[in-house]
């Protein structure tokens, strides 16, 4: 592989440049649009050089949109808050439920353990609407329709299988002998779990939590079906925002930038674990 010709290196360089342009351009472009007024956005040909303005972000954050026809209220910050609340709470609940279960599946092969683990996994692959559509009817009867509790419950379908299978892998990686040694020293099962297993699997648990957060944040269909405007996260809110604000393209771009920044930042932070997480523990990065 060392003796690559100059021509090959040039071709590789060109190919990589094209790849980077294709995958980065939309993000860069929307980012640029978010600092423009409608006036410069609508100019043809599209402008690469413009005077950046923070007006779009100010309008979103203050929730007041000044238009020629008057001021318009935007509830986008509410959507952002919903996204944060739903994702954080769902992941917290998932960790609380999923980590002990993952430990049980990793350490104790019990009757039906594999069946249960696979049933949980299969939720990840079943069509979401199969469950969601009847669930809307049930939720209306139970009074869970358009409540945070109902949404967080359903979000477990995204977070739990992910956390269960990733964390299980990390527990399996801990040699059982360490735990036996600690237990022979007279410590209870719970102390062993808390003092040995949890700290050793700590990085894995954190990574699984971050990933689950990203997936919860990026989810669209659950909230589209089960939540109305005041409980909707950014993914659904941004879509509604487009139809309601009509032609405020600068604000829409700014809303998209605000909505994707948290997951992009987390992904950069957790990129070491992404491979393992995305493959549910099947491939190590």
């Amino acid at each position, binding site marked *: 592989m060392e003796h690559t010709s100059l021509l090959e290196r040039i071709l590789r360089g060109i190919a990589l440049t094209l790849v980077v342009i294709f995958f980065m351009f939309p993000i860069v*472009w929307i980012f640029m649009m978010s600092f423009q007024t409608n006036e410069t956005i609508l100019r043809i*040909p599209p402008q690469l050089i413009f005077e950046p303005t923070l007006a779009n972000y100010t309008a979103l954050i203050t929730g007041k949109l000044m238009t020629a026809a008057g001021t318009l209220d935007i509830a986008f910050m509410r959507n952002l808050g919903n996204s944060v609340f739903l994702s954080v709470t769902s992941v917290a609940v998932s960790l609380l439920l999923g980590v002990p279960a993952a430990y049980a599946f990793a350490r104790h092969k019990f009757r039906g353990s594999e069946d249960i683990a696979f049933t949980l996994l299969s939720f990840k692959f079943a069509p979401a609407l199969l469950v969601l559509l009847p669930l809307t009817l049930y939720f209306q009867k139970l009074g869970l329709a358009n409540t945070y509790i109902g949404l967080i419950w359903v979000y477990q379908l995204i977070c739990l299988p992910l956390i269960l299978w990733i964390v299980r892998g990390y527990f399996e990686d801990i040699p059982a002998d360490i735990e036996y040694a600690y237990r022979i020293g007279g410590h209870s099962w719970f102390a062993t779990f808390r003092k040995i297993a949890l700290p050793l699997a700590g990085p894995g648990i954190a990574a699984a939590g971050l990933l689950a957060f990203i997936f919860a944040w990026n989810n669209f269909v659950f909230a589209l079906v089960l939540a109305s405007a005041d409980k909707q996260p950014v993914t659904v809110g941004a879509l509604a925002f487009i139809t309601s604000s009509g032609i405020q393209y600068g604000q829409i771009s700014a809303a*998209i930038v605000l909505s994707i920044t948290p997951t992009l930042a987390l992904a950069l932070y957790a990129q070491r674990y992404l491979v393992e997480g995305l493959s549910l523990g099947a491939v190590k990065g």
Partner: protein
Amino acid sequence: MTAVVSQRPKPSGFRISKKVLPYVLSLPALLVCIGILIPFLTSVVYSFQRYRLSQPWARQFNWGDNYISFFTDPKFWNTLKVSLLYAGTTVVLELLLGLAIALLLQKRSTLNNFISIMLLMPLMTAPALAALMWKLMTNPGFGVLSYLASLIGLQDFRWASSPSTALFTVVLVDIWVYTPFIMILLLAGLRSLPTQPFEAAALDGVPRSFVFFRITLPMLTPYILTATLFRLLDSIQQFDIIYAMTQGGPGDTLTVFQVEAYLNFFQSTNVGRSAALMIILWAITYFLSNIFIKNWLRLRERARGQA
């Protein structure tokens, strides 16, 4: 429990608690999910009923009618066709592109690692928001891509709003979002391959095409299979991108399974047909996920073995 354990490593009291303990630990997680199993069964029941939200009084079992009517329903065949076409095109293109990029980035270097991390960004963008981004860029009035298309002679290229290019546009967005997924799995696979076969081949002066087809590809196959099936399972169920981009339109150009079921449920309030559609999709994904899980488990065993 502490008192019992302190005698010997394996006293009888310890064994009893060991039997119950795993159930206690996994029960809460299970209970939360069982609540979700009920709607699944409800879906099965609905799919055998004539059930319209607009006519609740006419609700009754019609047994297989929802399914039988699919045979003569051109809308259903359109759904099946579009779903398979969408899944097939996206997965094949993403696999080829992802493999090519993974090969380009195979060598560990600062630049390559940096690029591979950058390429993850589309994958971390919510698919629904990615669709909105592309919608802004393909806007006929000011969209930069519409402008670029006009530069290369495609005047009035309508992207997602024309039936002839709508599928192309959503496939493009899908490729943008999900190619990095295949790329990153295959890159991890490529970098974990043993080096000896490649060194031996280099020593013997084996042509590089031979090395690629006879050594790299066969050794990479489990990774390719897992990544492909993973994507196929996801892609046949695609909803976010298509719904956010066109709501299944124009007309019924893009009414894939989940979009069609959603529209049936909320617009035509035909619960029975919507449920039957979802059961058929479920059957397809169940079949695919069984193949997937076998491959995935094999790969997982291997990854754990390396640890």
